[in-house]
């Protein structure tokens, strides 16, 4: 049984169809890539899966997920705006643990230290404010905050596209390591095929709100069936 089944889902904003009749299933433990140009509906689809946006039509079936707010998490594209500038790093990471009462209060600090170590940040960063950290470090904080929920499923919404190229590889490696270590399921949004190639098992291609093609990574990259996928691939160096 798939972890998440998206069935004929749509989202319209007035006459504009951001997502148009999309179906896909996400399997336990896989990394599913989601590719498309900006405005193709990738982010809208991701937010509907998280129930941050309600779909106008269709349904999403969650198997083995009790609480979406805890079991499904997201890492955002821009670490400059995705972390509250007035909240210390440690408190930001502790917040989900408090809200979902995952651990008793006295054990939270140790857990925060563990999470910081997991994302390869020094534990002393817990006492710092976001503006004292670099973009790459903040993105690690975003990852730690998502992992603090102990999720089953993680959406990564172009998690490296706002970072310096030199840092992108480190963060990608970290994400891959974490996925394997914690046996997580990822929906990895990207517009860059080299990133997709490194991270994903399967790839879905979206164009103007519609699902164009979905399949194994090797198959999509070596033998794309759709002209739009070929166009996207030819844009890669």
């Amino acid at each position, binding site marked *: 049984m798939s972890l998440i089944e998206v069935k004929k889902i749509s989202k319209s904003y007035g006459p504009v169809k951001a997502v148009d009749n999309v179906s896909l299933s996400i399997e336990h433990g896989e990394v599913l890539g989601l590719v498309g140009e900006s405005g193709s509906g990738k982010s809208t689809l991701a*937010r509907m899966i*998280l129930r*941050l946006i309600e779909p106008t039509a269709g349904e999403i079936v969650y198997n083995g997920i009790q*609480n979406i*707010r*805890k079991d*499904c*998490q*997201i890492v*955002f*594209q*821009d670490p400059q*705006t*995705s*972390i*509250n*500038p*007035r*909240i210390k790093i440690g408190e930001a990471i502790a*917040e*989900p643990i408090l*809200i*979902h009462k995952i651990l008793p209060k006295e054990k939270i600090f140790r857990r925060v230290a563990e999470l910081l170590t997991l994302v390869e940040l020094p534990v002393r960063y817990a006492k710092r404010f976001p503006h004292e950290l670099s973009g790459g470090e903040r993105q690690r904080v*975003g990852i730690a*905050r*998502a992992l*603090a*929920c102990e999720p089953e499923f993680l959406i990564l919404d172009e998690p490296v596209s706002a970072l310096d190229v030199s840092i992108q590889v480190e963060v990608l490696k970290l994400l891959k390591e974490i996925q394997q270590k914690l046996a997580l399921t990822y929906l990895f949004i990207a517009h860059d095929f080299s990133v997709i190639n490194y991270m994903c098992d399967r790839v879905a291609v979206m164009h103007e709100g519609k699902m164009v093609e979905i399949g194994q990574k090797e198959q999509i990259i070596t033998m794309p069936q759709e002209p739009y996928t070929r166009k996207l691939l030819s844009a890669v160096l």
Partner: protein
Amino acid sequence: MGRNKLALFGATLLSLFVLVAIFAPMIVPYDPSAILENDTLAPSAQHWFGTDDLGRDIFSRAVFGARISLTVGLVAVVISLLLGTLLGALAGYFGGWTDSLIMRFVDVMLAFPSIFLILAIQAMLTPNIYNVMVVIGLTSWMGVARLVRGEYLKIRELSYVEAAKAIGCSPARIIFRHILPNAMGPIIVAGTLGMAGAILTESSLSFLGMGVQPPMASWGNMLMDAQAYLLDAPWMAVIPGLLIFTTVLSLYFVGEGLREKVGVS
């Protein structure tokens, strides 16, 4: 640079006034309500600011008046900030019909000329200092609500608010813990400017006899007492007038300085 110096100047004067207000009983040479022998004495070494029509020491009354005027201003502005922030936050965060309802209420409140509204309410209540503070607070929160709503509209679109939703924060937690601290800058600026307005309103009310009641001294009712003696004892009017003017101006300087720092337009 010029603005900064003005703000510093304003802050210094205000701190001085606040200290004077706090330590009023230790500073005054006479009981502010005591009637001394001679009325309408010109300023002299004995009576720095002269005496009023009843022969009370104007310096002592001005010092105690600072207590009243600053307290009324502060309490009124706190009430207006609490109310304005709460309603503005709800309107800005939830949007939709909550927003429409609250903002139409703001429009209705703004449509009344506030001084007449205050006078009408005061006429129904016993005019004492507590009612003055509450009534000024309840009629001056609308600007704050509009400002805070705008801040919330802007901040709620940032992805850390979305992140807070994704980890399961309740709306109350997002409104107060995640957004409010990021909207504090403009709120503090509004508070400073609002306090200037509240002090002016208190003075006008007391001047009209609907505010702080004699024998308690406020700068406003000192002005009222001075009306009949403008030519014979001009210091009776000049002293409280100057004090109101300086306090309000200082608050504006500080407010403008903060505004520039915070980057609000």
